[in-house]
């Protein structure tokens, strides 16, 4: 638990209505992010990282529904907030950048226009000042020749450039929390680092908290204060990056570490995680990792799973930890 929480996700359960019936995707997700803190949420593809963030912002698909839980932003529950109030928070205090920068920007509006749209919506600026502010915003994300890029359409820019514009859109109103959903997938390695450094630098300069979503533990360790490990819609372990790497207690965290390339060490050392994510359309045991786990005991399949404090900033949900 951070001592000064900005955002608290409490027991969040989300399900989707599909043709094959109701799918319980998130199961009692608990996360918290302190002011100015960076929390990385790590997990395999399909573990519910994006869904948690979408649910928190109230931008789930129509098929999704929150069954249970609260999302407190400075004490206010975002899930029960009137629509208009939530809308005035989104983009202003809470902003989000997305997995695929090319499709996340409106293809027929220029970079500048899309920044202006957000500014016009939240900032109290006269019309004339909008353009200037948008260009300044482009300069802030280190786009060269911002006055010219102001007129550029997404299809005229590279993926990395689109992600910078996306960041400029998200940070236009200096939000207090940025949700970055895999901001570097689809970008080449050098661009990845540049973008991550940019986010970190801007976050530090503005005292902004970051909810970083990634499947890359190495990236999480480099950029986050704390790491939360998710599996099949459950948070299994939360701890500072150091602790995750040195003293992880959850078998899944260990497996994930074993599958993450290290700076020293060769590719042969990597061990894939056995099995695959469980089919969430079927009823699940309390611990959704139990079928893939070699330390599974009877209690795993009978008693409810809760996230317990087991040390300073260290939380764990496991019946038979390491």
């Amino acid at each position: 638990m951070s001592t000064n929480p900005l955002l608290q996700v409490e027991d969040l359960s989300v399900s989707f209505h599909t043709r094959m019936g109701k799918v319980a995707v998130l199961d009692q997700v608990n996360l918290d992010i302190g002011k100015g803190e960076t929390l990385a949420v790590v997990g395999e593809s399909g573990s519910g990282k994006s869904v948690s963030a979408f649910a928190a912002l109230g931008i789930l698909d129509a098929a999704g529904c929150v069954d249970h839980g609260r999302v407190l932003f400075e004490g206010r529950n975002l899930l029960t907030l009137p629509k208009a109030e939530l809308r005035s928070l989104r983009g202003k205090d809470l902003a989000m950048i997305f997995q695929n920068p090319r499709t996340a920007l409106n293809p027929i509006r220029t970079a500048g226009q899309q920044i202006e749209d957000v500014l016009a919506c939240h900032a109290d600026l006269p019309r004339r000042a909008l353009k200037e502010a948008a260009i300044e915003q482009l300069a802030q994300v280190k786009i060269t020749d911002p006055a010219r890029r102001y007129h550029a359409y997404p299809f005229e820019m590279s993926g990395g450039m689109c992600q910078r514009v996306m960041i400029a859109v998200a940070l236009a109103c200096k939000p207090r929390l940025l949700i970055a959903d895999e901001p570097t997938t689809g970008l080449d390695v050098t661009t990845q680092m540049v973008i991550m450094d940019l986010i970190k630098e801007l976050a530090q300069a503005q005292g902004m908290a970051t909810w970083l979503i990634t499947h890359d533990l190495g990236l999480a360790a480099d950029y986050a204060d704390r790491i939360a490990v998710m599996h099949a819609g459950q948070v299994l372990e939360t701890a500072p990056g150091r602790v995750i790497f040195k003293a992880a207690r959850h078998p899944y965290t260990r497996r994930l570490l074993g599958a993450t390339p290290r700076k020293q060490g060769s590719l042969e050392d990597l061990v894939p995680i056995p099995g695959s994510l469980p089919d969430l359309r079927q009823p699940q045991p309390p611990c959704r990792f139990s079928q893939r786990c070699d330390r599974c005991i009877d209690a795993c399949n009978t008693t409810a799973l809760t996230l317990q404090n087991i040390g300073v900033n260290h939380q764990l949900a496991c019946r038979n930890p390491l």
Partner: protein
Amino acid sequence: MHSSKLQLIARRLIGALPSLFAVILVTFLIMRILPGDPAAFFAGAAATPEAVEEVRVKLGLDRSLPAQFWDYLTDLAQGDLGQSFTTGQPVLQELVDRLPASLELSALGLLLAVMVGLPLGVLAATRPNSFADHACRLLTTTGVCLPTFFTGLVLIYVFYYLLGWAPAPLGRLDLFLTAPERITGFYLIDSLLAGDLEVFWASFTQLLMPAITLGLFALAPLARMTRASLLGVLGSDYIRTATASGLSRTTVLYRYALRNALLPVVNTMGMVFSYLLGINVLVEKVFAWPGVGSYALEALIASDYAPVQGFVLAMALLYLLLNLSVDLVNTLLDPRLEKNA
């Protein structure tokens, strides 16, 4: 920007020349393959074979096909579409006289369809399974099933014969009124220019039933395309971005979603308009509308070559202009096209 548009226009016009030539050739041949002998028709039922032959020579129909085609082409190059055997008038003059009637009708039909179809499609997409969604589905299926001339006849039966709300389906204007002075040829516009509201209203009421007949046909593809396109756009990533940025519902729906969704709808509009020009032929017949469609139909029945050839050529040119304007509108809406053009 300007020069790229001019280039686009020039490229399209030059690119269309081969297909225009093909249209001219094929219509020419089809007219001569179809049964029917204009010389016999022209000479009258009581004419002797010698008289028919005389007429044939006079009309130049005794010459070989290539020679006739060459004559036709050289006339065309001088802007001469030939003369109608039946009316004795130059075809070009008659087409120019009658085209505004057809265009006014088709345009109003399309306008009605757009005014109903787009909002219906938007409502259906934003409120799935609502009343609007079901209405959209019902209208689009029935609109496709009913043949236009049948809808036209039903409308006449109900609104003219049974209810007496609509004026008699006999052309563009009540017999007791005089047509406005010709400026554009569109009665609605010309009457307004002349400041004659009575004629405006009279021609509007005459237009309404045939236009609704056309509109009902055009409604289905427009509403369906709007709905499908908007549904696709609403599920896209940039709409999620816009929502996550806290933009208002109207901004998200109109500035972000609808503008993107309109791109394929504009293409559909062009396509539907060209269908309407074709369907006009039947609707004009039903409503005794003095347009180019009924003109061509009568000429076809009389094996009167020149008007039919002129009509098909005029339609081909219209399609060409229509496609060109659709492309121009698209480049205005979609920056990706402009830069690639």
